[in-house]
């Protein structure tokens, strides 16, 4: 680093004591909340209660400041300038690769490929690794709990290549049918692509167990970490992943930046994704030779500003400690579940066993459509998601059109859960007497 301004964050990333990694003892939600100016906002005349974190998280001032700082102080294109600004920008950008590698336990920073989001990361694997390695008759195994972005790319590949797409069924409690999973994973399975945590129901998936079964058959394992990485301590080796995809915007970072992590040997053997500048070593009129991993997969000028600000988001979460993050959310979820069960006519979806639930509370109210729930909650300043959560197979399995979903993050409080519960009771009163 040729300049020290990259270390100079907009505020202290210091909300916990020195033993942040070991526990929640010193967790200070009030101090965290001060870093999120949006939480002071009023919506419909009341204080915003933001419970749509599974869709996207809010951003702390440190991240917002880093975005501005880059544009103000050292904006330049990367990897191609000898001048000072370009060197600073390149160092900051590449520094984020290192941070992320450490954050997910990757062996080397080159294994981090920047994409736009999780969706693009999964599509990258579908376009490069899968097209180079899969043939007609090969099987891809996903699950009924997947987000559309981990379904549609494989359906497209199936239709194009005659690949067989199979689904691990989900049970009514929102867990996967592991007995059937064992029978589905076989010698024809070439890819297991599985979510780490369900965005619709919050189920934490036994990824390692499934990965071991898949690896025993020689298959490759892609983990959709869009919900897992922001909320659970994630180590790529521990979960048994060969690829991991996630998005910055769900973990305090900006929109427009995501990550594909892959084992180096796999990435090295893969053909490039898009063609253009930065991804080549040399170009003649006849042909080009590919640049090294990861640049081979990052054609054109990347999203420099958002990547750098994503690094600040990683710093923020690292300072809190991901175990503490999960513990905070589990505490809130437990409190919310205990209070919400008493709301008349409520059905809460997802596993009974709270130890396999992330901070997601998906529910419905008898005879009241989730869209109406969302509308009335919004009038109380409570932002939740109502819909199928881009997981229509989950809704089909539960035989419901949609759910209302509250999802928590580091800045949410028990008082906010109280507002949610009271507002949900209002919904029941308002639409009361409606036939189911």
């Amino acid at each position, binding site marked *: 680093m040729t300049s020290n301004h990259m270390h100079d964050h907009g505020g202290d990333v210091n909300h916990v004591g020195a033993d942040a990694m070991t526990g929640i003892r010193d967790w200070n939600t009030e101090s965290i909340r001060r870093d999120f100016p949006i939480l002071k906002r009023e919506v*419909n*005349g*009341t204080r915003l209660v933001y419970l749509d974190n599974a*869709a996207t998280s809010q951003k702390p001032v440190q991240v917002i400041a880093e975005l501005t700082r880059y544009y103000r102080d050292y904006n330049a294109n990367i990897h191609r300038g000898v001048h000072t600004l370009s060197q600073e920008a390149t160092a900051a950008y590449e520094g984020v690769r290192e941070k992320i590698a450490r954050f997910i336990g990757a062996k080397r920073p080159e294994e981090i490929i920047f994409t736009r989001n999780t969706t693009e990361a999964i599509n990258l694997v579908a376009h490069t690794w899968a097209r180079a390695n899969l043939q007609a008759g090969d099987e891809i195994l996903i699950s009924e709990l997947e*987000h*559309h972005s981990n379904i549609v790319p494989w359906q497209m590949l199936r239709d194009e290549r005659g690949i067989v797409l199979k689904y691990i069924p989900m049970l009514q409690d929102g867990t996967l049918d592991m007995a059937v999973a064992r029978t589905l994973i076989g010698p024809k399975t070439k890819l297991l692509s599985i979510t780490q945590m369900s*965005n619709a129901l919050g189920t934490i998936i036994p990824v390692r167990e499934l990965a071991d079964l898949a690896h025993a058959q020689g298959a490759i394992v892609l983990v959709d970490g869009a919900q897992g990485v922001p909320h659970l301590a994630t180590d790529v080796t521990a979960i048994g992943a060969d690829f991991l995809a996630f998005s910055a915007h769900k973990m305090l970072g900006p929109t427009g930046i995501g990550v594909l992590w892959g084992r180096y040997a796999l990435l090295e053997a893969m053909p490039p994704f898009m063609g253009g500048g930065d991804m080549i070593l040399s170009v003649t009129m006849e042909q080009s030779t590919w640049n090294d991993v990861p640049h081979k997969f990052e054609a054109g000028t990347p999203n420099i500003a958002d990547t750098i600000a994503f690094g600040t988001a990683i710093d923020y979460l690292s300072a809190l400690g991901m175990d503490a993050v999960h513990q905070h959310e589990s505490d809130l979820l437990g409190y919310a579940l205990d209070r919400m069960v008493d709301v008349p006519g409520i059905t809460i979806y997802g596993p009974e066993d709270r130890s396999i639930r992330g901070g997601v509370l998906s529910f419905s109210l008898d005879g*009241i*459509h*989730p*869209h*109406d729930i969302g*509308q*009335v909650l919004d*009038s*109380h300043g409570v932002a939740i*998601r*109502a*819909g*199928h*959560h*881009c997981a229509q197979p989950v*809704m089909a399995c539960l035989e*419901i*059109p*949609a759910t209302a979903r509250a999802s928590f993050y580091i800045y949410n409080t028990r008082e906010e859960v109280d507002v949610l519960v009271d507002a949900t009771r*209002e919904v029941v009163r*308002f*639409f009361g*007497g*409606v*036939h189911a």
Partner: protein
Amino acid sequence: MPDAALEDLYREILLDHYRNPRHHGHLDAANHKADGANPLCGDQITIEATVNADGRIEDIAFSGAGCSISQASSSMMTVYVAGHTTAEALRAVETFQQMMLTGEAPSTAEQDLGDIEALAGVAKFPVRVKCASLAWKTLQQALQSQTAAAVTTDERSE
């Protein structure tokens, strides 16, 4: 309710149609039919109509599931168009869509939509306009085609 806009959205007449939907079910002798869906909120509707040789809607029914706005709008729509000619019904569809754009009840007597004007408040909630419009778009589809047709509003992703 803390919010006047919300009361404007969920008018009493609308909640009444939601709780006690009229013309809900199926017809034995329908000669017009269409399905509509609003994937964002999971609203689904089927409209069946019996249109006689004079082009008059003798009977109409809707079925399906959806939010209060889409269900109430469907119910109110069926009450309005039953007994009207298809030409009148199609004109009402246009008047309704205009009302969703402007948030204003129609100004002329021949465009009078009666109770349905209670839905004008929906225009303030752009996401819900789709819910309110679904029944009308599906009606249009049903009247314009004898065979089953499907209407789908576009989907936003998460």
